[in-house]
């Protein structure tokens, strides 16, 4: 028999991980369904989450009318479905239905509500027979699917338990999971979620969360535990996804400090449910079954009302206290009449000779298939369009470039890359923003690590940023800013001072308020002067020796012990005494000095000076820097991955990217997805430092890549909001080199300007370059940039084949040369394992946020409030909002993002791609068609598409 944890684990993947908003990770909200074919996964997800999984057919009709969906493609896909499903109807008939009747399907129902028409009796009887209304028990079960007992009680007896239960849960978990947003922290969080909850609610329970859950389920008389767990997880699936994420990431700092598990969250939910049930008529499911058996029709009617599934007339009848049996019967008749009228109307439009009952079945099946038919037709039309454009180009030698620029494969690099290429003899490359070098980065003046790698990769190398020059001014400004913030915060949070504070210094905030609103550019300039200017820095790229590690750990511990002793006692402890204390805490040596147990305990618990922490610190410090072989390996992998193995210009720039905006909790969603939602500058700087190192160049030459001594790797940062490019570490250049590089910088600046002009055309209310600049500093701006909206494809291949195309920032572009790859397609496998997965997550996050923003998106930014510094919710409490805000994918009520699966063009022979798919961890979602692979095989002169489990030729070259 499976344990309670096993039962929870069997359903927990239904809800996706939710990463904290500070490092926003785009993800597929249906990740747990990737084991199924895309189409089947969507059907299953819809049955669980509800909502839509495809756009409405009227949306696709618009695209068809604009010529984006090709008629021939649509017909071909429709024909395939008719054959596969065995629908014995002419193509024209099906096409007419999908194009002329189906887009009006819902509005027809509205029309028939007020129009009386005769109903075909045979059709009515047929629909009645096929409907669920005949089997009231099954109907009831369908209605209560994924409902908790308190929701059922609310529906049947008009209570408001759901509101209070969810509110209580949110109040507790948002305070428990808080990451320093509040000034009044919840106590006892280090005990773990369930233990802290017991103290929070002041209830006595000796056993653990697992036992509590088991006992609660017994009290509620739950028969299907897994299903009930799922019902509970779905109530607040954003919060559940976050708890799931942190509980599965042992390195997540807050999780280590305040542990939480999904079973504990479940225990808390069930606790509140039991509390609510105490005063309810139906306090367990046996009582509900008994009640439902005795009041079946009444229960159905009330559940229909609760779920907003009744017509207005029916609601009026309920208000008028008419008999339940009459109301329900009228409701069923109404529903069936409307169904019948829809079919009768379709018959009139389609001029069909089929019996209406047969037509009903065909139309039902066609409607089930239409979303996928339209989606695939849109994708196929794009595939045909782009294949024609890509295969037209033949590879040719180009003039030698002065500089190369590697950008992140992010869609937003397309326009800037094209602009740079048009500005002079420059060549550009695309790679995953983390450049294949996953690092845990500790920024200068910060204490925590940032994982700069795709969310699925755990960095094994830590890099510290250290100042390279004197930084007194920086430190003093930072110190001053911190003190000011602290004073203001204290004044704000003290019960007495806010009154005086508002009177005395409230006007100061007015400068910010009015400045940012009316003069954003000037205010930004003024405020930036107050910000501390970071000194020049270097990175710790070399490994520490064992002695150095020991030294640093000891130094850290000594400093902490010294500080705790200074705060706790008046006695001045010597260095030797501190060593004795440390050795006692870590190596369990005898404590030969007189010190209180309380201080020892404090050092152990509050400051983690323990044997475990000692080992942990040593392990972390051993991760600092890279061994020479690692450096060479990372550089080699990077160069071979983008195919830059023999063409090295004088300046090889590697340009990371980030976004700048104001008052935007989703800012990190606009940063580099391949760097875990962070700015990718540290990766580019680290790789450039590695590539410029002499010992690395010697070693890499042994592997066949000769980088000329004259080639300098220069890191840069592309701000995607403004398209500005800034270069770093240029002090490695000689004066002569610098003169040449200034010309490169100048050309790149021109390219930035061109890119801004082009991008301004697609941004709303943006006409000039100045408008674009203001967007990055306007605190009321809901779209500082379009981000990754409208992404539709990936191109992995040499740049030459796409250089001539205006791709409008819609393609992830990864440079790849299969001729450099080995027989096992290792390079392509790496591209599939990292960038492709990130691309798929980004693509599907946009897809689902667009098709149903209420279910899979974050809703409107207007209602958002940041909660616990981990995400946003609506108003003052709600579920943690997953996905993207509606403003990121919609414009003026219409979808701006075109939801399609990621069309993945790969320039390589089919065998190479086959091997990469086989070896990649992305294999399940590739084979299940959560992306659309298209292989351009110039060797075989064929283009393949992957469909229904096989690669099929879609074009001969």
């Amino acid at each position, binding site marked *: 028999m499976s344990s309670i944890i096993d039962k929870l684990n069997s359903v927990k993947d239904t809800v996706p991980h939710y990463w904290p908003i500070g490092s926003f990770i785009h993800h597929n909200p249906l990740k747990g369904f990737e084991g199924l074919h895309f189409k089947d996964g969507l059907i299953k997800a819809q049955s669980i989450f509800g909502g839509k999984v495809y756009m409405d057919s009227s949306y696709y009709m618009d695209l068809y009318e604009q010529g984006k969906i090709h008629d021939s493609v649509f017909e071909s896909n429709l024909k395939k479905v008719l054959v596969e499903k065995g629908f014995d109807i002419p193509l024209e008939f099906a096409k007419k239905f999908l194009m002329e009747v189906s887009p009006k399907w819902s509005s027809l129902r509205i029309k028939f*509500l*007020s129009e009386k028409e005769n109903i075909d009796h045979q059709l009515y009887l047929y629909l009645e027979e096929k409907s669920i209304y005949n089997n009231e028990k099954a109907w009831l079960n369908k209605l209560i699917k994924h409902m908790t007992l308190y929701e059922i009680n609310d529906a049947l007896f008009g209570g408001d338990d759901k509101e209070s239960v969810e509110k209580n849960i949110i109040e507790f978990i948002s305070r428990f999971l808080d990451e320093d947003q509040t000034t009044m922290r919840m106590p006892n969080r280090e005990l773990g979620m369930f233990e802290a909850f017991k103290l929070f609610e002041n209830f006595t329970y000796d056993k653990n969360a697992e036992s509590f859950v088991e006992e609660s389920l017994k009290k509620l008389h739950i028969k299907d535990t897994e299903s009930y767990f799922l019902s509970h997880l779905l109530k607040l699936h954003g919060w559940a996804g976050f708890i799931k994420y942190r509980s599965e990431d042992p390195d997540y700092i807050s999780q280590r400090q305040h542990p939480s598990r999904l079973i504990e969250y479940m225990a808390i939910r069930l606790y509140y449910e039991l509390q609510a049930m105490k005063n309810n008529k139906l306090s367990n499911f046996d009582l509900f079954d008994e009640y439902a058996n005795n009041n079946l029709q009444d229960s159905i009617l009330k559940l229909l009302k609760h779920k907003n599934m009744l017509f207005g*007339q029916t609601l009026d009848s309920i208000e008028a206290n008419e008999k339940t049996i009459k109301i329900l019967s009228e409701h069923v008749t109404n529903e069936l009449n409307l169904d019948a009228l829809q079919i009768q109307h379709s018959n009139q439009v389609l001029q069909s000779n089929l019996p209406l009952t047969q037509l009903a079945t065909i139309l039902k099946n066609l409607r089930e298939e239409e979303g996928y038919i339209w989606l695939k037709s849109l994708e196929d039309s794009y595939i045909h369009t782009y294949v024609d454009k890509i295969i037209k180009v033949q590879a040719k030698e180009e003039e030698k470039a002065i500089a190369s620029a590697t950008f992140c494969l992010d869609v937003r690099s397309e326009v800037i890359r094209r602009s740079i290429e048009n500005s002079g003899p420059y060549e550009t490359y695309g790679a995953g923003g983390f450049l294949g070098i996953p690092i845990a980065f500790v920024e200068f003046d910060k204490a925590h690590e940032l994982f700069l790698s795709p969310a699925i990769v755990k960095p094994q190398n830590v890099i510290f940023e250290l100042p390279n020059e004197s930084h007194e001014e920086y430190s003093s400004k930072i110190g001053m800013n911190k003190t000011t913030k602290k004073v203001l915060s204290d004044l704000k949070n003290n019960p007495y001072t806010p009154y005086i504070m508002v009177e005395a210094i409230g006007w100061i905030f007015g400068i910010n308020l009015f400045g940012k609103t009316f003069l954003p550019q000037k205010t930004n300039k003024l405020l930036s002067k107050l910000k501390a200017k970071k000194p020049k820095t270097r990175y710790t790229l070399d490994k520490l020796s064992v002695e150095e590690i020991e030294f640093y750990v000891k130094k850290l511990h000594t400093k902490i012990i010294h500080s705790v002793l200074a705060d706790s006692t008046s006695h001045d402890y010597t260095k030797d005494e501190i060593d004795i204390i440390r050795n006692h805490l870590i190596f369990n040596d005898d404590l030969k000095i007189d010190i209180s147990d309380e201080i020892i305990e404090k050092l152990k618990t509050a400051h983690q000076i323990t044997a475990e922490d000692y080992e942990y610190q040593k392990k972390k410090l051993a991760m600092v820097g890279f061994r020479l072989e690692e450096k060479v390996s990372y550089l080699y992998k990077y160069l071979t991955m983008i195919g830059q193995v023999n063409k090295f210009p004088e300046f090889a720039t590697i340009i990371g990217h980030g976004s700048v905006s104001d008052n935007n909790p989703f800012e990190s969603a606009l940063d580099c997805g391949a760097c875990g939602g962070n700015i990718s500058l540290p990766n580019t700087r680290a790789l450039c430092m590695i590539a410029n190192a002499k010992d690395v160049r010697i070693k890499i030459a042994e592997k066949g890549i000769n980088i000329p001594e004259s080639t300098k790797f220069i890191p840069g940062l592309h701000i995607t909001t403004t398209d500005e490019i800034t270069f770093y570490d240029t002090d490695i250049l000689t004066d002569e080199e610098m003169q040449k590089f200034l010309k490169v910088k100048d050309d790149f600046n021109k390219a930035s300007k061109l890119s801004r002009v082009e991008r301004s055309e697609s941004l709303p209310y943006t006409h000039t370059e100045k408008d674009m600049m203001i967007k990055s500093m306007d605190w009321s701006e809901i779209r500082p940039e379009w981000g990754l909206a409208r992404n539709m494809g990936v191109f992995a291949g040499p740049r030459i084949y796409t250089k001539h195309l205006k791709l409008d920032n819609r393609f992830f572009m990864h440079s790849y040369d299969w001729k450099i790859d080995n027989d096992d397609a290792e390079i392509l496998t790496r591209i599939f394992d990292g960038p492709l997965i990130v691309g798929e997550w980004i693509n599907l996050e946009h897809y689902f946020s667009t098709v149903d923003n209420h279910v899979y998106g974050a809703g409107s930014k207007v209602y958002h409030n940041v909660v616990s510094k981990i995400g946003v919710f609506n108003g003052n409490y709600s579920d943690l909002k997953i996905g993207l805000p509606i403003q990121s994918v919609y414009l003026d009520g219409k979808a701006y993002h075109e939801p399609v699966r990621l069309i993945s063009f790969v320039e390589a022979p089919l065998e190479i791609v086959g091997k990469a798919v086989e070896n990649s961890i992305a294999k399940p979602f590739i084979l299940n068609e959560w992306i659309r692979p298209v292989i351009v095989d110039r060797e075989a002169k064929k283009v393949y598409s992957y469909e229904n489990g096989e690669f099929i030729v879609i074009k001969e070259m």
Partner: protein
Amino acid sequence: MITDIALLILAGGLPYYTLLEKNTRLSSKNIFLLSAFLLLCAVVLSLSIPNEHPVSLIVVSLLSAIFSIYKATKTTNFYKLGYYLIFVNAPFFILFEDRGILYSVSLLVSLSGLYLIAKFYEKNYGSANYSNITGITLVAPHLGTYLSFYLIALALYPPFPNSLFFLNYIFKSDPDLLSYIVVTTLFFGNFFLAMRVMRKTLFGRPNPNIHYVRMSLKDKVIHLFILILLLILSIFGLKEILL
């Protein structure tokens, strides 16, 4: 005395509940229209009669109004809500005496907007019942905006005329205990009834089982006209307060 009783019949709710609601032939829409018409008659009648009303009439109408508030909380039909709101406000009309005329006109103008919204619902969703038509603001923003204006006006929020005439009465009268009770009860009654509708139909998640319909240009123009009327009344109201 006779005119008082006539006023009570015209502006109080009880007779309607006992006579009209029991009549199955009369729809709530017809009752709404009849009530509005009779309130208008009461306004005209009150112009030709002395303005002093006995306390007993005010007490009876207050009790009738409280009963109307209760009835209004039990309905999710705009027509019913419309005529309940007339009866909820009847004591104001009696209490405000000659200053109650403009208040009644403002009320009728706001309710005419609500009536048109009800008609829109009836035409497009089969009934003026709003219980299942949720999240209007998100899916039909124009409709949501107009409905918000009417409800805010009915909730006695400034600067809508209803609230201004109401304030004018408070500023310029010598209230006694009964006035306090009437004003407080009915102010909160109006407020909570309007907010209840807002919560149920304007906000929340749109109902996936409904095909939402947007307003036609003709509808928008008509509603704009009503808003302009409210604006003109607001100017009058503001003048009355300031002068």
